């Protein structure tokens, strides 16, 4: 059997051949990213290399920092100084970045963090894919924190979701984790790149008061405070709990209000953030849940299942967090089984189980040996539970 | 006639003074001393004991960690030349 995907025909400015990693870099520039700080790590290094090549051409700033921690710090500093910024890494580096990712979350700095997932844990399998960082992407840094996690699958999605990652980061003043895996990062094909004018670009909300009156965390405007950049709007901020002036506080009322607002900032915008790709879900009796490159394999498996008379359907989230719990429940309720396929030994399946609330049995196609999950494996499971 | 000796004025911010005694310690001419203020952690604050001894070296101001002491020069009238 041949694996092939239906090509979507769109009117586009240009068709170009690129890898997933390259697409991230190209899209970042198109989204207005003008600062990149990173550290080499397989399989993400091509993102850094491409940004090093592209940024000087647009008067942007590139720097290879001395380590992953410094990269996350520099990207956050540049964001506070007014630039759209990004850093990219893989598992071990993502672990290192957690503290400063939490800092970016706490000071509400827009930053895009790309994690091209590889076999883990620890040094793992640097040149093989995995999806073992998904829980870490959501919960990796300590404390209650706001983060949005995106999981594109196709090359075109990589491009568009990178732009969306920047838009979300800017609009909600939050770090956004863009998860790829080694397959997506390195797979190369043609991408229908929209013309820059076709892209919606969102910038951080700007203050409307003069600098002397500016408060960096003024919640009177809603859950996302206007963000002035350093030097134009001098302000203080800290990783400590702080009030709307940016200065530290331990006052329980203020601290509670801060942390609740920061979570509400993301979860209160669930509808705007949620984005799924669905195939054959209208009447699906077997609901498959998969994301990233496994999601692409699931698309093929579901198509074959239909060809064989099985009413299978696929929910492939592009926004992994906030989790599409309602959609999962609504589809699971109408199905007789849910199959979760992921390149780990059981992470998102827990979220699916939680969302399904026991209304339908949930099964897993779980693998963490560095090999991709292929359509026949998913089809076999679909048949088994059908 | 010799120019009159420069005169100085020292202002203490008792609210910010923590009674650390550094200014008393660094003053080369014994201008300052400490007085009781039991509400303070160290139980004391600085006061100006003898302003006439002040030579305006600024060491107290430079060495105070708390912006609690300032030295100002007092503008002097020139003594009229006789004869």
């Amino acid at each position, binding site marked *: 059997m041949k694996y092939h995907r239906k090509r979507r025909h769109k009117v586009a400015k240009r068709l170009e051949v690129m890898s997933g990693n390259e697409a991230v870099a190209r899209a970042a520039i198109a989204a207005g990213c003008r600062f990149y700080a990173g550290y080499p790590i397989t399989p993400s290094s091509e993102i850094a290399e491409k940004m090093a090549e592209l940024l*000087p051409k647009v008067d942007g700033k590139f720097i290879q920092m*001395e380590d992953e921690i410094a990269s996350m710090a520099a990207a956050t500093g*540049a964001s506070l100084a007014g630039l759209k910024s990004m850093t990219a890494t893989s598992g071990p580096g993502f672990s290192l970045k957690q503290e400063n990712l939490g800092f970016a979350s706490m000071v509400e700095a827009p930053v895009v963090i790309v994690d091209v997932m590889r076999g883990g844990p620890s040094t793992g399998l640097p040149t093989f894919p995995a999806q073992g960082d998904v829980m870490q992407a959501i919960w990796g840094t300590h404390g209650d924190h706001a983060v949005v996690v995106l999981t594109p699958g196709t090359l075109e999605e990589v491009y568009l979701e990178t732009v969306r990652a920047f838009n979300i980061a800017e609009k909600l003043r939050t770090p956004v984790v863009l998860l790829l895996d080694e397959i997506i990062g390195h797979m190369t094909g043609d991408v229908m790149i929209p013309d820059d004018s076709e892209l919606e670009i969102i910038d951080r909300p700007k203050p409307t008061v003069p600098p002397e009156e500016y408060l960096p965390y003024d919640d009177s405007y809603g859950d996302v405070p206007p963000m002035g950049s350093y*030097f134009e709007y001098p302000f203080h901020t800290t990783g400590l709990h702080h009030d709307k002036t940016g200065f530290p506080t331990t006052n329980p009322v203020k601290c509670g209000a801060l942390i609740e607002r920061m979570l509400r900032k993301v979860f209160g915008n669930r509808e705007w953030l949620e984005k799924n790709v669905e195939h054959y879900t209208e009447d699906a009796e077997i609901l498959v849940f998969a994301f990233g490159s496994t999601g692409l394999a699931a698309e093929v498996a579901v198509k074959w299942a239909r060809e064989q008379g099985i009413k299978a359907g696929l929910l492939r989230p592009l926004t992994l967090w906030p989790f599409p719990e309602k959609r999962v429940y609504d589809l699971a309720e109408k199905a007789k089984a849910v199959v979760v396929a992921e390149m780990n030994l059981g992470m998102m399946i827990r979220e699916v189980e939680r969302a399904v609330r026991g209304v339908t049995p949930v099964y897993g196609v779980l693998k963490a040996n560095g090999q991709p999950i292929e359509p026949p494996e998913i089809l076999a499971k679909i048949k088994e539970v059908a | 006639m010799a120019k009159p000796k420069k005169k100085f004025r020292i202002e203490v911010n008792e609210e*910010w003074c923590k*009674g650390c005694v*550094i200014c008393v310690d660094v003053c080369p001419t014994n201008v300052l001393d400490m007085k009781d203020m039991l509400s303070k952690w160290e139980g004391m604050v600085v006061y100006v004991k003898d302003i006439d001894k002040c030579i305006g070296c600024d060491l107290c101001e430079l060495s105070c960690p708390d912006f609690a002491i300032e030295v100002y020069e007092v503008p002097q009238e020139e003594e009229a030349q006789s004869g």
Partner: protein
Amino acid sequence: MAFNYKPYIREDKFPNIWCPGCGIGILMKAIIRAVHKMGWKREDVALVSGIGCTSRMPGYVNFNTLHTTHGRALAFATGIKHARPDKHVIVVSGDGDALAIGGNHFIHACRRNIDITLIVLNNMIYGMTGGQVSPTTPAGYRASTMPYGNVEPNFDTVNLAIGAGATYVARSTVNNPALMERQIKEGLQNKGFSVIEVVSNCHIQFGRRNKMGDQLVLRHWIKEREVPLRKAKDMSPEELEGKFVIGTFVKKTRPEYTEEYAKMVERVKGASK
């Protein structure tokens, strides 16, 4: 003649949290005076810190201020400076913040020679967290994690900075605030990475654990060990053991990071025309 600090401080945050007699306040004032004498507008200055007693300084000064994570101030500051090379970035850090957890960022900032001024306030202990040993705690002295006396040798901040390539390196102590200010100003003037170490007294943690007495005693203990650089040049390593050599060690010019980057950008943009 009294310097007017008011425009540069956030008065509503005072009195500050530092212990009575702590040298950090003296450093803060010296930084303010140096910035003022540079003629810079306060809106054009950023003060970045990590975690620790020294790192509490940004909250009190009226600049663009950022209080970051332990040891990482220089990395955040690099992001800010690289994004806005036209602005002025100062970093304050304690000995633990700059030389232990922050060691890697310290040496790379020196190597890059990025136009940032780092002031390391060295009080030879981890003050805020309760008196643990620091990479600058002298051998033999007690700390909460070396209760029987420190068995480790300590760093010489100046040597580290010189070895890593900083273009302005100086040291003073809290006993000489005028010299402190002069060195900071020279650091600010230096178009490159400047490291100024200020030796200070933490009588509450370092002093008390070593039964050294109060702030005055500890300041005098430091003063007795101060040796001016011109005199130190003629002294042997044994004679200099345990001493604090005061002065300016390096003052040189080397290509500065943001300038080199800008030149490269011009070259790239010119080539692609």
